[in-house]
């Protein structure tokens, strides 16, 4: 019960941060709020038993992304020029989609229900076979590196492609300085 209350409070905090991030005009504060948002997400992941996800989110989501944003902001304007020309349209779209999703959420299994469909499929297999197959206690590592190793290979291909894209777009920085 207590963990659900803590979880409920933290996730409510997230919603507040997201709303403040919309309203702030300074890009810098939006970026820092996004970092805080990721960090609180990491705490929620710990309370939902996803410790591996939590430290990846804290290191990569809160740390590395924020560094990337700040590095990019050196060359970008610091303030947003506020133009509210399609706010009402956006609000109607988001409100409509949100209502439909909340309607659909009543069909989802209750959080923590051990009989939910997700826990009946390959999850129990991974839990009972990781130790005999790989001999390591961390199930997430076992699944990531062995059972679903091809997923991880695909992930590295995506990261390689993204890195290549960044290099091709920015080059060595000489072209950019010439244009400025």
């Amino acid at each position: 019960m207590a963990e659900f209350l803590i979880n409920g409070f933290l996730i409510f905090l997230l919603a507040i941060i997201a709303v403040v991030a919309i309203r702030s005009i300074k890009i810098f504060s939006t970026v820092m709020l996004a970092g805080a948002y990721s960090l609180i997400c990491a705490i929620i992941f710990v309370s939902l038993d996803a410790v591996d996800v939590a430290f990846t989110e804290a290191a990569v989501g809160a740390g590395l992304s924020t560094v990337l944003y700040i590095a990019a902001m050196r060359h970008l304007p610091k303030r947003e020029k506020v133009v509210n020309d399609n706010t009402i349209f956006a609000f109607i779209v988001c409100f409509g989609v949100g209502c439909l999703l909340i309607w659909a959420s009543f069909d989802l299994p209750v959080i923590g229900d051990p009989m939910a469909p997700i826990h009946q499929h390959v999850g129990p297999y991974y839990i009972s076979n990781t130790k005999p197959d790989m001999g390591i206690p961390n199930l997430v590592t076992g699944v990531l590196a062995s059972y679903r190793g091809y997923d991880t290979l695909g992930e590295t291909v995506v990261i390689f492609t993204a890195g290549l894209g960044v290099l091709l777009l920015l080059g060595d920085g000489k072209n950019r300085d010439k244009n400025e």
Partner: protein
Amino acid sequence: MIHGILGIWNYWIVIILMMTGLFIVISRHNLVKKMVGLTIFQTSVFLFYISLGKVQGGTAPILTGYKDSLYSNPLPHVLILTAIVVGVATTALGLALILRIKSEYGTIEENEIAKLNTEENSK
């Protein structure tokens, strides 16, 4: 009653966060802010997956050695681990694109870029 609401409370907040992200992407013209909106959207999906993988009374999916331990489902954790790392790669690519747009157009406001484009075409 209170447990009934807490059981799907996570889903509701996830939906609100997702719609907040979508709202930022649609209504703000600043490209960096749009990227932050996409990040919020993305993280809400992560939360949704991790919430689904939770088992009441379970522990983190690291084998404790006791026979009767109850573990949360490791599969969503693996999927989201991959998604977080891919997410930061796409963020880097997006920011690189924004930097190029800044050096070409001199602005990162979407409406100003659209105006510059129509002026360019009408010449």
